[in-house]
């Protein structure tokens, strides 16, 4: 079970209360987590990354385990603590975007 924390504006858009808990098939990567998130909540498509290119929107950031993963390889495995659900994967609105 992967835990995902969304910024409040996206929680309200998707009518999500608290953390999202996702089952991710196969390797747990940023891409597979976001794919699972968008499959579960289609209204989030286009709000975190581009519909087609899947490029991260400039004012969205990805953090986990006190690290900034925004510029990491989207197909690299996420830390074990995220993959096991011990730590959440954080999707954050950049400080400059509010």
């Amino acid at each position, binding site marked *: 079970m992967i835990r995902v924390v969304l910024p409040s*504006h996206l929680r*309200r858009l998707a009518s999500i209360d608290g953390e999202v808990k996702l089952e991710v098939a196969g390797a747990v990567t940023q891409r597979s987590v976001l794919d699972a998130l968008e499959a579960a909540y289609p209204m989030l498509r286009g709000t975190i990354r581009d519909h087609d290119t899947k490029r991260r929107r400039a004012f969205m950031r990805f953090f986990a385990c006190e690290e900034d993963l925004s510029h990491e390889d989207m197909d690299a495995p996420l830390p074990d603590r995220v993959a096991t659900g011990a730590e959440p994967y954080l999707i954050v609105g950049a400080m400059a975007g509010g």
Partner: protein
Amino acid sequence: MAGVRVLVGTRKGAFVLSSDGTRRSWEVSGPHFGGWEIYHVKGSPADPNRLYASQHRGWSGQVVQRSDDGGASWRPVGNKFSYAGAPGTHQWYDGTPHPWEFERVWHFEPSLDDPDTVYAGVEDAGLFRSADGGENWEELSGLRGHDTGSAWQPGGGGMCLHTIILDPATPGRMFTAISAAGAFRSDDAGQTWRPINRGLHSQGIPDEDAEVGHCVHRIAMHPSRPSVLYMQKHWDVLRSDDAGESWQEISGDLPTDFGFPIDVHAHEPETVYVVPITSDELHYPPDGQLRVYRSRTAGDEWEPLAKGLPQQNCYVNVLRDAMAVDSLEECGVYFGTTGGQVYGSADGGDSWAPIVTNLPAVLSVEVQTLP
């Protein structure tokens, strides 16, 4: 009893203002989509319960919301706006080529007869259409693909397609306006387009009467006379009597002919409203006095309407999509300001009263007249 529903888009959410036909007391609903920029909310002429809202913010881009119950509830629909083919380039602020990039929806124009068909005017300037209630969007690329597209440039608000007018009398005829490219007309339901800017003169471009490059702020039409169009340009107020083939200036005795919105009385096709703004540098009313100007002669002769509006220390702006009229027997006129006030007049502009006074900056105002 008949009533009205005023749909207000602001920098931080949408608001719905409702009243009966007297328009004396108002119920305020909102904020809907709090914290998001709501560029526009508009109802379908074919089904007043069908509303479309453009929701945007820098973090997460564009969302489109749809209501099927007059704004009581909403759900997000499709937000994928992909330009057809290779996007190409337009002019950037500095005159260099810049690729077309979708930013936001400025304006929705629902079809006159089908609630599921709606047009979207977007930034960077393009026209999209949905035939399934906003779930999927397809570009009508004949507009952006016009030979002049590479010469279009952004106005101060970005390179936006902000006006879409559907001709109720001539099937397939529609008008659009883009800042800063100008006005365009299609006679084949949006497949092909041509500029209709003859008679426009604009400083700030190399050729003052060029085919494109004009910063048209808004166009309005009365449905009973669809060949007559009124235009508020960056500077100048103009009228066309031939569906845009040519334009003549009608600024007349206005104190300044800079401004953003323009609209037409619901029952008097020659009664027109504008809100003069001091200049392109000073985006507030002359002398700190907020006044709507009305012409009953299709332009040239204008009268100030000030009763009930602030006449000192008022330095707000009224944006291009922030004025609307209802179609009750005594025509109501409404406008919103960047100071968060929405004013209404239940007597065609003779007198005004604030409906709400402390909203976020108002981006758009539309009104629905309900049975």
